[in-house]
């Protein structure tokens, strides 16, 4: 049982709301939750093939939309390209990152780690929901 449903039942038990009001609140809660739940289970279980980035934003009264689909195979190939970067270039990149306040050592980043990261991307779901913008990053 989720927290909101428990709160409603508690309010009913304490006599703060009537049974009819509790039923209406629970129905409203289910309506709110169903799109999220269906969104999470909509994708058939299996190997994801694409990384999707969907952005919908309201700017100056106009609706803007970005819909990007990138094959995960392309990310894997990109990871292999990163392994070709010469050490002196990595050293320079590290120095610039340090200068910008990001103490990150790129030489410690192994291609196997990046490949493992890409492999597990299909389990990722990022959802940002604001009044004027909505961002979804997921694999399908």
């Amino acid at each position, binding site marked *: 049982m989720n927290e909101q449903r428990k709160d409603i039942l508690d309010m009913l038990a304490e006599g703060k709301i009537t049974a009819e009001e509790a039923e209406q609140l629970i129905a409203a809660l289910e309506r709110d939750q169903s799109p999220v739940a269906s969104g999470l289970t909509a994708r058939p279980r299996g190997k994801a093939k694409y990384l999707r980035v969907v952005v919908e934003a309201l700017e100056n009264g*106009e609706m*803007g939309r970005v*819909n*990007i689909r990138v094959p995960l195979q392309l990310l894997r*190939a990109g990871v*292999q390209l990163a392994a070709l970067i010469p050490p002196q270039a990595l050293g320079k990149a590290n120095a610039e990152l340090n200068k910008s306040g990001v103490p990150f050592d790129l030489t410690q980043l192994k291609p196997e780690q990046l490949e493992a990261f890409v492999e597990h991307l299909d389990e990722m779901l990022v959802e940002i929901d604001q009044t004027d913008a909505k961002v979804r990053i997921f694999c399908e």
Partner: protein
Amino acid sequence: MPQLVTVRVKRPDRRPIRIWVPVLPAALVFAPIVILAVLGVVVACVVFHVDVVRALGTGWRIISALPGTRFDIEQDRTAVLVIIR
């Protein structure tokens, strides 16, 4: 390898532009430029001590992985769509 690149541009008060680029014929037409680019990559690899075969292999893998890529951007009645098949 990509077969077809579709580009569609919609602008307010103008006719939408749709371009279909067949990749293989386009690559054949631009073959001299492609060969020069590959030579440039080989020289850069030699200068920076990078394995030439591995670099070209990775480049080819990236090109082969492009089909299925789609960019669709819409803002203020202006829209750009790029699909690589």
